[in-house]
């Protein structure tokens, strides 16, 4: 509770805010009529969503033959998109759970939006394996339910089934965690509203009152959910990597995959958080809550995870050579210099080389550089999954079945359309809920803001003025 002014750490909330101003700044975007910029962005996103719906319908109607998959290359853009979206969906839980456990207070500025992004990214991710089944109406077969065929159960030894459990658990837990945090903020929105709006937000706030005992339970719940979500977030991408690592395909069958995938997921997730945050803070005037300090902290995580990913790429190459196993050696030779060399170059330059610029403090704190870097990383991480999946499959054991793959318009439409789905959901979210966690920002204001109310604070300010 002490109000000590730190001379070392920069404040997490700028602009000398009071509690009421925080409410005003963070809740008012949901109360104003939408701006023209929002309407235009929403129309673009919904157009993307329409394209997505059309391409999904086309795929189901025409069958998987409308894609360029063939006997050799059975997984390509579909699974690339799946892994890419799941990876993006890792940053939210990392920010909200792991940083909560580590008591990193800067998380309060970005956790709400990052968790929302996680949920929307997982929604996008989960669709690709389903569409990829071709016969979507049989998707229920992936769940173990009592049936009239024996009952014949699913194969609990298969990593593809582990994935079903991992993704659905991750989605459920992220949603619960996010919503629990939203409940007190919905109550704040409710108490400022009138009429129907008040009724709607009362419904959403579950009748929250702010009682001391409720806050105590709420904090206990948040802490345990964070403790559960931390190993969960690591397990999800580990299990996604098992989809590849437990196979016997050279280039996939490696023990390095789980940590390498998890680091890559955090890397790409933070990049997407930055892309969204840089736009959101500008459009909603939240520069005093999502500060340059926040951006710098995230850029440090990007530098760390990007470097881990880079080391993983080099380790793969070294182990392929050192193993003395010609099929493994060929798989990696083919990745770097084979027909898909351009995707390897894209991956290496976007993921390994470009983040190294962030060793410079000046570049880490530059909005312009950060924004472009975040786009680069999003592209690079998509290439990484494409390199792992399509490049590896294109050249298998039998040269007679070697093949090349070019996406059809349906597959391109599905990918672009899934971005439309993602941004539609995100744009609705920024209209409906406070983008920054209101109660949590208030709770750190005195320990980490530049404004201190109350008696201790007056003393601290008086003290500071003396010096």
């Amino acid at each position, binding site marked *: 509770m002490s109000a000590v002014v730190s001379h070392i750490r920069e404040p997490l909330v700028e602009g000398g805010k009071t509690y009421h101003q925080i409410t005003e700044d963070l809740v008012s975007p949901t109360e104003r009529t939408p701006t023209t910029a929002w309407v235009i962005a929403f129309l673009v996103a919904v157009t993307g969503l329409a394209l997505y719906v059309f391409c999904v319908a086309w795929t189901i109607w025409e069958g998987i033959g409308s894609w360029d998959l063939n006997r050799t290359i059975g997984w390509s853009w579909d699974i690339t998109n799946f892994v890419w979206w799941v990876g993006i969906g890792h940053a939210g839980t990392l920010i909200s759970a792991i940083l909560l456990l580590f008591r990193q207070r800067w998380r309060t500025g970005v956790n709400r939006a990052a968790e929302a992004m996680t949920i929307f990214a997982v929604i996008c991710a989960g669709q690709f394996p389903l569409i990829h089944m071709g016969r979507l109406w049989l998707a229920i077969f992936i769940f173990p339910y009592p049936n009239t065929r024996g009952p014949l159960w699913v194969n609990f*030894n298969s990593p593809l089934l582990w994935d079903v459990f991992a993704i659905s658990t991750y989605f459920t837990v992220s949603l619960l965690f996010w919503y629990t945090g939203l409940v007190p903020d919905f109550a704040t929105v409710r108490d400022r509203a009138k009429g129907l709006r008040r009724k709607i937000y009362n419904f959403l706030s579950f009748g929250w009152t702010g009682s001391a005992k409720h806050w105590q339970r709420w904090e206990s719940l948040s802490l345990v959910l964070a403790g559960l979500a931390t190993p969960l977030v690591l397990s999800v991408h580990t299990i996604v990597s098992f989809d590849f690592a437990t196979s016997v395909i050279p280039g996939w069958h490696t023990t390095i995959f789980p940590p390498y995938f998890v680091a890559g997921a955090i890397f790409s997730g933070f990049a997407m958080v930055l892309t969204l945050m840089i736009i959101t803070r500008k459009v909603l005037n939240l520069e005093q809550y999502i500060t340059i300090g926040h951006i710098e902290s995230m850029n440090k995580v990007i530098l760390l995870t990007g470097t881990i990913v880079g080391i993983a790429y080099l380790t793969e190459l070294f182990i392929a050579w050192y193993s003395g196993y010609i099929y493994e050696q060929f798989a990696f030779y083919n990745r770097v210099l084979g027909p898909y060399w351009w995707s390897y170059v894209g991956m290496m330059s976007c993921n390994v080389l470009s983040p190294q610029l962030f060793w410079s403090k000046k570049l880490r704190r530059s909005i312009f550089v950060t924004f472009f870097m975040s786009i680069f990383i999003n592209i690079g991480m998509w290439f990484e999954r494409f390199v792992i999946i399509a490049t590896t499959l294109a050249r298998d054991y039998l040269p007679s079945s070697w093949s090349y793959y070019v996406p059809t318009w349906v597959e391109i439409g599905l990918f672009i359309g899934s971005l439309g789905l993602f941004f539609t959901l995100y744009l609705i979210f920024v209209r409906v809920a406070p983008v920054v966690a209101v109660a949590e920002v208030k709770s750190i204001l005195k320990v980490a803001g530049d404004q201190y109310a109350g008696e201790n604070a007056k003393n601290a300010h008086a003290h500071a003025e003396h010096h």
Partner: protein
Amino acid sequence: MGATHKEVLFGLYDDEEILLKAVQQAKDEHLDIMDVYTPFPVHGLDPILGLSESRLHIAGFIYGALGTLTAFLFMTWVFTRDWPIIFGGKPYWSVPAFIPITFELTVLFASIGMVVSFYTVCGMAPGKVIPTLDDRITDDKFCIAFNTNDSEESEVEKIKKFLSASGASEVNTKVI
């Protein structure tokens, strides 16, 4: 809250540090606080108010253990009793392959169980209308509330005196 109406006398404070001192003072004067409402979790309030630690995490452990057992015993039953199949020359009871799903269901059961328990013990539910004392409690006011349903005049006066003396910016009554 139900059908019984309560007459509540409450004071609104502008800052949590004033609130903490006031709550301490109320405890020293043996005033019977009904509840304290704040816009965000105020640390240091629970011990002064005498709230015991939440037992939610114990419930969470039990739910988690239930998830572990459900997943592991179900897969064991399927692969050793109900429909044994050999996959890749492995034993029927291939324990290492059961670990990922066992872990996921542990987390799933613990999370869902705890969240449901949380809302149940707090008496909250979607659409539930719980009357609040003041709209600014979720904004920037910190509230100490007293139930004055059966209080005598002198007691009410004493509480009012306490509230204004301890730094409340407003003192109000409301029937909820």
